[in-house]
C-alpha cells in the first residue's frame, strides 16, 4: 500500500473538496465558457413590459427580469426574488420574504415597495395586461417591512394557484414602472445595450446580478429573422448559435442534421380567436359551428409537423381540466357545422362579411388559416385572408382589431383559471371583447374555478362547467397543442435551462 506524504494528502484533500464543490453546480455549467451568444428569433418584441406575457416577448422577459418564485421543469417551486413564502392554513393569505442585496438595473435596491408597485400595476385594468386577470383573486396587500410582503386573497385559493400567481409576478423597478414599455426596469441577468427595431436586440451581462456565476455569456445578441428557413440557414452556417422559437418542422430537420433540440415543459395551445362583438360572430350558433369547422388533424400536421396533440379545449394534456372526450364530441364535421350555420339564421352575405386576420410572418399561421378558409369554402362561405406582417399583426391581435385570427395561448398546463391571463380569455379588461364582458357565463365559470377550494368533486364540477361554457360560448376555438420556444442549438452550446413557460433563459447558457 502506498503511503501518502503530508503534502500529497493535503493536495488530495483539496482536490476532493473542489470536486464536491463542483458537484454542487450543474454538470454542464462546470466547463462552460462565456463570450457572445447569438440567438436568432422569429419575432420582434412588442415591448419590455413583463406583464405583457406575449409569445413575441418570450425571448427577453427572463433575461431582463426575475420572477418572485420559479418552477423547475418538473413544476416544483423554488426561490427566486422571494426566498420564502408562507401560505396561511385557511389559504387566504401568503407572506413573502424578499431576497436582500438585489438591485434593479437602475441601481435602485429591490425592496417590498417594488412588489407593491408591481401588484398595483397588475391590478390596474388599463396597465395590468396579462396579469390583470390573475389579480382578480387578490383582495389587498401590505409590506410590514422592506423585506416582507403579505398578499391577502378574497377567498380561500388553492395552493397551486397561489404558487402560479407568485411565479407570474415579476417585480418592476418603481422608478421605471411608468416607462417600462420602452425602457426595461428589471433585476434580470442582462441589461439593455441597444435595440434596432425589427432587426436586433443587444444585451450585456448585469455585473450586479445576484445569482452566483451567472450569467455565463457576457453579450447576448438577438437577431430578428422574418423567415424560419433563414434562421435555420443562419444556424447551419454558424452565423448564429441558437434558433429560438423556430418552427417544429425545422426543429425536426435540424435535429436529424445533428443539432441539439430542447423542448420545454410548457406547450401552447393554438386557438382560433373570435371577436364575438363583430359582424356574424355576434351570433352564438355561427361561432359554435367553428367547433366543427376546425380540421384539427390537418392543422397539426401542416402547421406543426405533427408535434403536439389535437385539442378542443385550451388545455395541455397535463392540465387538471383536460378532458379528451371533447376532442371526439367537437371533431371536424362539416355537416354539423352546416346545421349550426343554418340555425344561426344569418344570410349568405352576412356569413362571408368578415376577413380572417393572418400573421403573414408566421408560416404555420398562413398554412392553417388556409385550411380553415378551405373548410369554409367547402360549405359555401368564401372568405378572404387579411395578411399582415410583424408588428402590424401584433398590434391588431393585442388591440382586438380583428374578426377572427389564430393566436396561441399559454399557461395551459397550470391552474385552469390561468387561461384568463391570455388576452382572448381575459375576464375583464379584455382587449378584444371589451367591457362589460359579452360572455358572463364564462366569467362566472372562471370565478367558480377560482373559488373551488373544497373537495375533489367540487373542483371537478367547476372544471366541467368551465369546459362546457367554453365550447358553448365559442369565442375561442382551440385546435392543437404544440411546442413553443423550441431551442435548436449548435453542438458547442451547453447549459440550456428549460423554463416552465418555455421562455428563453440565457443566464445558464455558455460555450463548451
Amino acid at each position, binding site marked *: 500500500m502506498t503511503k501518502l506524504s503530508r503534502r500529497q494528502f493535503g493536495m488530495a484533500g483539496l482536490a476532493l473538496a473542489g470536486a464536491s464543490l463542483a458537484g454542487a453546480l450543474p454538470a454542464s455549467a462546470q466547463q462552460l465558457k462565456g463570450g457572445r451568444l447569438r440567438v436568432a428569433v422569429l419575432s420582434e418584441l412588442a415591448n419590455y413590459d413583463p406583464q405583457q406575457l406575449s409569445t413575441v416577448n418570450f425571448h427577453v422577459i427572463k433575461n431582463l427580469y426575475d420572477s418572485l418564485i420559479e418552477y423547475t421543469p418538473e413544476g416544483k417551486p423554488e426561490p427566486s426574488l422571494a426566498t420564502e413564502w408562507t401560505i396561511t392554513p385557511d389559504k387566504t393569505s401568503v407572506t413573502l420574504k424578499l431576497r436582500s442585496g438585489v438591485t434593479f438595473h437602475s441601481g435602485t435596491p429591490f425592496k417590498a415597495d417594488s412588489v407593491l408597485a408591481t401588484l398595483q400595476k397588475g391590478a390596474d385594468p388599463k396597465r395590468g395586461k396579462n396579469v390583470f386577470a390573475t389579480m382578480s383573486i387578490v383582495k389587498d396587500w401590505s409590506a410590514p417591512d422592506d423585506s416582507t410582503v403579505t398578499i391577502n386573497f378574497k377567498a380561500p385559493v388553492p395552493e397551486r394557484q397561489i404558487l402560479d400567481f407568485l411565479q407570474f409576478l415579476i417585480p418592476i423597478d418603481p422608478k421605471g414602472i411608468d416607462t417600462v414599455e420602452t425602457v426595461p426596469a428589471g433585476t434580470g441577468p442582462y441589461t439593455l445595450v441597444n435595440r434596432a427595431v425589427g432587426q436586433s436586440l443587444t444585451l450585456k451581462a448585469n455585473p450586479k446580478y445576484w445569482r452566483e456565476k451567472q450569467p455565463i455569456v457576457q453579450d447576448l445578441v438577438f437577431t430578428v429573422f422574418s423567415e424560419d428557413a433563414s434562421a435555420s440557414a443562419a444556424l447551419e452556417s454558424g452565423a448564429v448559435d441558437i434558433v429560438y422559437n423556430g418552427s417544429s418542422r425545422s426543429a425536426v430537420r435540424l435535429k436529424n442534421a445533428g443539432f441539439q433540440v430542447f423542448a420545454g415543459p410548457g406547450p401552447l395551445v393554438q386557438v382560433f380567436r373570435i371577436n364575438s362583438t363583430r359582424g356574424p360572430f355576434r351570433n352564438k350558433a355561427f361561432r359554435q359551428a367553428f367547433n366543427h369547422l376546425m380540421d384539427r388533424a390537418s392543422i397539426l400536421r*401542416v402547421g406543426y409537423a405533427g408535434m403536439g396533440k389535437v385539442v378542443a379545449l385550451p388545455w395541455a394534456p397535463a392540465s387538471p381540466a383536460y378532458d379528451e372526450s371533447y376532442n371526439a364530441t367537437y371533431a371536424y364535421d362539416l355537416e354539423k357545422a352546416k346545421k349550426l350555420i343554418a340555425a344561426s339564421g344569418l344570410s349568405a352575405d352576412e356569413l362571408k362579411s368578415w376577413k380572417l386576420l393572418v400573421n403573414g*410572418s408566421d408560416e404555420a399561421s*398562413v*398554412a392553417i388559416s388556409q385550411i380553415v378558409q378551405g373548410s369554409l369554402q367547402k360549405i359555401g362561405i368564401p372568405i378572404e385572408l387579411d395578411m399582415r406582417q410583424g408588428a402590424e399583426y401584433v398590434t391588431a391581435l393585442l388591440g382586438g382589431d380583428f374578426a377572427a385570427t389564430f393566436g396561441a395561448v399559454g399557461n395551459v398546463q397550470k391552474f385552469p383559471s390561468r387561461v384568463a391571463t391570455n388576452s382572448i380569455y381575459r375576464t375583464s379588461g379584455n382587449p378584444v371583447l371589451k367591457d362589460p364582458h359579452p360572455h358572463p357565463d364564462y366569467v362566472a365559470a372562471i370565478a367558480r374555478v377560482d373559488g373551488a377550494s373544497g373537495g375533489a368533486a367540487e373542483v371537478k364540477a367547476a372544471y366541467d362547467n368551465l369546459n362546457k361554457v367554453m365550447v358553448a360560448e365559442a369565442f375561442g376555438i382551440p385546435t392543437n397543442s404544440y411546442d413553443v420556444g423550441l431551442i435548436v442549438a449548435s453542438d458547442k452550446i451547453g447549459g440550456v435551462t428549460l423554463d416552465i413557460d418555455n421562455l428563453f433563459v440565457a443566464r445558464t447558457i455558455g460555450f463548451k
Partner: protein
Amino acid sequence: MTETLARIKGLLRRLLARRGAALGLGFLTLVALAAGFATVLPFDPLSQSVAASLLPPSAENWFGTDELGRDILARVIYGARTSLLTAVGAVIIAALIGVPIGLAAGFYGDWRDSLLMRCIDVLLALPNILFAMALIAVLGRSQGAALIAVGIAGIPGFARIARAQVMALRQLDFVTAVRGFGGSPGYIMFRTILPNALSPLVVQAIVLASIAILLEAALAFLGVGVPPPTPSWGEMLRTGKSYLYEAPTYAVLPGIVLTLTILSLDTIGRALTAILDRDETDASGETIGGRR
C-alpha cells in the same frame, strides 16, 4: 387596318426567323394559352388534400403537391393568370398615363416639358419595389393594388421614350405639313406623331411586361403580393423555399416557369429592337418607323 395587319404579320415572320425569339414566343404562347383556358382544364388550384401533401411529381400530379396537398401544376397555371394579368394591366396603366405625358412634354418643349419631366424624374427616383410596397400598404394587399403599383412604376419608362420620339419627329417635314394644314396639337401628337413612334413603345411594353411579372413575383415573395390562396408564382417561391428539403420541386418548378417567362419576354424584346433598328438603318433616314 390591312396595312397594320400586314406589318404585324411581317414582324411576326421576322421574329420567328430568329431561333431565340421563336422559342420565346412559343413558350409565351403556351403559358398564355394555359392561363387563358385554365378554367376548362382539369386542374383545381384550391382543392386541398392534406393527407397528400408535399408529394413528389407523379403521373397524377406532374409537378407534385404543396403543403396543403394542392396540385402545384394547377397553381402554376393559375399563377400564370395572376402574372399575365398584372403584366397586361400594368402595361396598359403605364402606357395610358406615360405616353400622353411624354408626347406633351416632347411636343411643347417649353416649361411644360420641364414640369412634366421633373415629375417623371421624381417617380423615377423612387425604387420600384419600395414604391410598390408603399402603395400596397395604403391600398391593401390585392391583385388590383399590385397591378396599379407596378403600372405606376412603369410610367416613367413610357414617358421618356415617348418624349424622345416626339423630339426626334416633331421637326420632320410630314409633321410640319400637318401643322401647316392647321392640325391641332392633339391631332398632331396622337394621330400624326404617335403612330410613327409606336415601335420603341411596343418594345418598351414588352420590357415592362417582364418587369411587371418579376415585380409581382417579388412582391408576393416578400409577402405583400396577392393574398393566398390565390396562386401566384412569387408566393409559391416564398412558401416553397421553406420546403426545399422535403419537396424541392415545390419552389424549383414555379421558379423555372417564372425564369423562362422573363427570359422569353426579354428575348422577344431584344429581337424586336434589333429588327426595328435595322428598319431604321435600311430606311437611311428616309423613313422612321415606316408609316407616313
